[in-house]
């Protein structure tokens, strides 16, 4: 069925064959699109939980003198208290967002679609394993969905023992098994990407000819393959403890609860870099293209990804500054500062790339700038948490919640939405509406900052995280935060509407609307089944902007270095 000139999205002769061609596809682009649909659904689900918990925090629950209760928003009956609904909402928000959305978000969707194309390959190294990983993801997701429908979980996404291993409430075992299964999907994708990068680069493409998105995915994959098994076995221990009373973490059975924290963060801290590194990758791509500028310090950015991946394995202890001994804390505090250095270097490089560039103002570039703004705040609020004396105060408060969201949402998610706009024309062959794209970006940016900047103050003022209710002093800051979250949600729905309209009635996209130089802009929009009619040849570097005219663009559309309009 190899058609050299037919879009990968083209329907087959009959409806059944079309469905068949999707669910049994080994085409990395189709698998990427299926991942995209799945992770966006997970994002919607996690977002619903987020809005639910922000609404519950509008005001503290209060029992008046006459016995009436005010401030209880989440009350779906069933005899559960407001606490219980809130605890389920924050746990499911975290679990769904982390395991079902943000970990697979960029690598499994955009990475799957563009990694092989950027290398000039026909597909990933193991196409069937790629499809299998999608089914494993869906199977793990169904487990999680079952756990939600069977009552939910209220242990927090971190599943801290002995609470998680002893609580009789909810379906902890099913949720933990769901996360365990999802881990395999992540490992398979990682293995596939590593093999692809090593073996399937088009002839002549050296390591330093690779786009930085590929470098970032490579670093991510290494972490996925090395760290995820640790999470897997840790989660299994919880299941064993719950089902067979094997004492690993529960002191009542002879276990050690802090051991769980070590195991858990040995995975989950590197996992934070699984989440953010792909975001760094897409930002590098977008900033170069939309600035028409060679990336400043290509090698520094590439090596900093690898450095971050390596150091990320050595900082897990900073999640335990209030539970561990001073000697351990001192070491982990120092190592944590070490990981901040390569991250800072990346930000400097991106901003330096804008110097003397030709900067387009469009949705992807707005997202790049929104990312730089929010991620810089996220990055700069890391040092107070790495500093031992200060962290003792801020640990497990809203300051951490805000910092985490500035990095994950302000970093990865903004990069992801920007990248969706950037590559949308290539994936689906349709343009989106630029005005509504920029409008959505503005709403998301404003809403995000109103929601989460407020939470830095909540944190320094002493508001602990994971609180279903609170003392009245914190009410006004919580209300500002909730208003922000609604603006943020509105912005996201603007994007959703814009994307749907684009699919339904968007104008056909040109092959290279932004003037990109990496291989995906050589391909058709959308690409043909095997990406390229014949194996592409590398004739210039991925970021030789200003010296190479981008392929498939109109003459004069993307002028070269120092070109001026002829009078």
């Amino acid at each position, binding site marked *: 069925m190899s058609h050299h000139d037919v879009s990968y999205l083209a329907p087959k002769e009959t409806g059944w064959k079309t469905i068949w061609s999707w669910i049994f596809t080994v085409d990395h682009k189709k698998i990427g699109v299926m991942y995209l649909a799945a992770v966006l659904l997970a994002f919607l689900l996690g977002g619903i939980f987020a809005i639910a918990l922000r609404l519950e925090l509008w005001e*503290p*629950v*209060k*029992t008046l003198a006459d016995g009436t209760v005010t401030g209880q928003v989440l009350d779906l009956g069933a005899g559960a*208290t407001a*606490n219980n609904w809130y*605890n389920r909402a924050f746990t499911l928000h975290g679990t769904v967002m982390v395991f079902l959305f943000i970990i697979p978000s960029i690598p499994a969707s955009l990475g799957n679609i563009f990694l092989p194309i950027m290398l000039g390959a026909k597909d990933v190294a193991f196409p069937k394993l790629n499809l299998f990983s999608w089914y494993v993801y869906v199977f793990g997701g169904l487990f999680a969905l079952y756990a939600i429908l069977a009552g939910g979980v*209220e*242990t927090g996404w971190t599943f*801290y023992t*002995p*609470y998680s291993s002893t609580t*009789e*409430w909810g379906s902890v075992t099913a949720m933990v098994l769901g996360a365990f299964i999802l881990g395999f999907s992540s490992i398979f994708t990682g293995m596939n990407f590593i093999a692809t990068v090593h073996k399937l680069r088009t002839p002549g493409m050296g390591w330093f000819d690779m786009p930085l998105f590929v470098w970032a995915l490579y670093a991510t994959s290494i972490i996925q393959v090395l760290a995820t098994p640790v999470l897997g076995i840790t989660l299994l221990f919880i299941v064993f403890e719950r089902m067979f009373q094997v004492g690993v973490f529960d002191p*009542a059975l002879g276990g050690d*609860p802090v051991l769980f924290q070590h195991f858990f963060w040995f995975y989950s801290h590197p996992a934070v870099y699984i989440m953010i590194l792909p975001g760094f990758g897409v930002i590098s791509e977008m900033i170069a293209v939309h*600035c028409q500028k060679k990336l*400043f310090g290509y090698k520094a950015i590439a090596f900093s990804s690898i450095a971050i991946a390596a150091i990320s394995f050595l900082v897990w202890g900073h999640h335990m500054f*209030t539970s561990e001994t001073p000697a351990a*804390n001192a070491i982990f505090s120092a190592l944590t*500062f070490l990981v*901040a*250095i390569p991250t800072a*270097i990346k930000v*400097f490089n991106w901003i330096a790339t*804008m*110097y*003397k*560039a*030709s900067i387009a*103002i469009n949705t992807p570039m707005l997202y790049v*700038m929104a990312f730089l703004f929010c991620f810089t705040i996220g990055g*700069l*609020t890391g*040092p107070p948490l*790495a*500093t*031992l*004396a*200060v962290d003792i*105060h801020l*640990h*497990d*408060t809203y300051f951490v919640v805000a910092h985490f969201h500035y990095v994950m949402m302000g970093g990865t998610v903004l990069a992801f939405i920007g990248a969706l706009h950037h590559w949308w024309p290539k994936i689906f062959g349709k343009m989106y509406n630029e005005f509504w794209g920029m409008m959505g970006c503005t709403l998301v940016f404003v809403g995000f900052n109103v929601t989460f900047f407020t939470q830095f*103050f909540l944190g*320094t*003022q*002493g508001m*602990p*995280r*994971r*609180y279903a*209710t609170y*003392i009245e002093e914190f009410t006004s800051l919580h209300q500002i935060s909730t208003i922000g979250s609604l603006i943020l949600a509105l912005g996201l729905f603007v994007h959703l509407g814009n994307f749907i309209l684009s699919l339904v009635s968007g104008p056909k996209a040109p092959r290279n609307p932004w003037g990109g130089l990496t291989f995906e802009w050589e391909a058709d929009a959308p690409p043909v089944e095997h990406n390229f009619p014949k194996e592409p040849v590398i004739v210039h570097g991925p*970021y030789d902007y*200003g010296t190479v005219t981008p392929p498939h663009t109109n003459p004069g559309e*993307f002028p070269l*270095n*120092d070109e*001026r309009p002829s009078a």
Partner: protein
Amino acid sequence: MTMDMFQPQQASSMLVSNVWDDLWWRGTTGASTFADGIDTIFFFIFWVSLLFFIVLMGLMVLFAWAYRRRQGYGPESSASHNTTLEITWTVIPSILFLIMFLWGFKGYLPMQIAPSDSEVINVSAYQWGWEWTYDTGAQTQQFEVMADVPSPVFAVPVGRPVKLIMSSRDVIHSAYISQFRVKRDIFPNKYTTLWFQAEQTTHYFDEEAGEALPISPDNKGFHLACTEYCGDQHSQMWGRIAVMAEADYQAWKAKMGTFEGPLHELGKLLHTTKGCAACHSVDGSQKTGPTWQGVWMEPREFTNAPGESYADETEYRNYMRESILEPHKKILAGYPNQMQSYQGQLTDREMLGLLVYMKTLSSNPDDVSAAMAESAAEMEAREAGESESEGGEAAAEEMS
């Protein structure tokens, strides 16, 4: 009460008027000996970060404007890397990070070692509440509503170190007193300690009320909160920290060390102080555990044992006693196996007090009057016994 008591209040109201401190710390600075040092490191990092942020964002906005795309104009040529620049922007943050690390470590170490002359308080955390046992054996009998539940008021002396030796009865908790800038996790399998020295007096001991009362309506005292998620009522594990002058602190402690009331009042107090209230309502409302209202002598269905009905009161009292001391034995249908054993935590009189108090919640008016009579008779006998023996020894023994 003397006039110097009001000085800290004036100082704190001056701070409250400071918008900046209000924004970051709710106006409470310098509440403990650690607070100023930690806040100084925080603001060092803050100002350095703000400087970097302004420079970076300034450049970004400047570049986005100055080099915006114009029809027909290409980018200007410029170097795509610059070793000197790249080394500079690697070295400068590294030096700043080193300063932050060293300063943070230096500030953190003293928090780890409590002075040997500290006032020692034993802290037990449980789902969901706190029990502080002072060196005299006293436990608080004072409560105020925080986050919609009666929350304990814990007094600490001003101007001298206090060391908390903490353990958990069930899952991991964490003690956090934000205004003191201290926090430490609490585990079921080991002791951890936390120490602080309070620097601002917030309360005085009111002889008449027999309670610690806030000096100023603006400052109701500091708060203790749990910062390690521990289940359903994690967000309702607040406690009030009342900082008092030494004499007031000692008077408060002495008052909290005695309880002179009758059995049913003792039971009612224990319902709050021992944490029963977290899971068992006394007004019929739904909580994690069954309510105590109107269940006296009612037949019970269990998930792990055959159902029971109670022919006489001794049988029922035995069932209740067992439920308190060995709660896992019979799990009431519809409720989780959640409760921890109170073995060794209640005196005989306290156990009796709880049972009599439960009986006063019966739906049968005869039970209620019988319980009140039992309570009154015991009180009479106690008073008679006490006048025979010397002073209040018996009462002191009872509470220890």
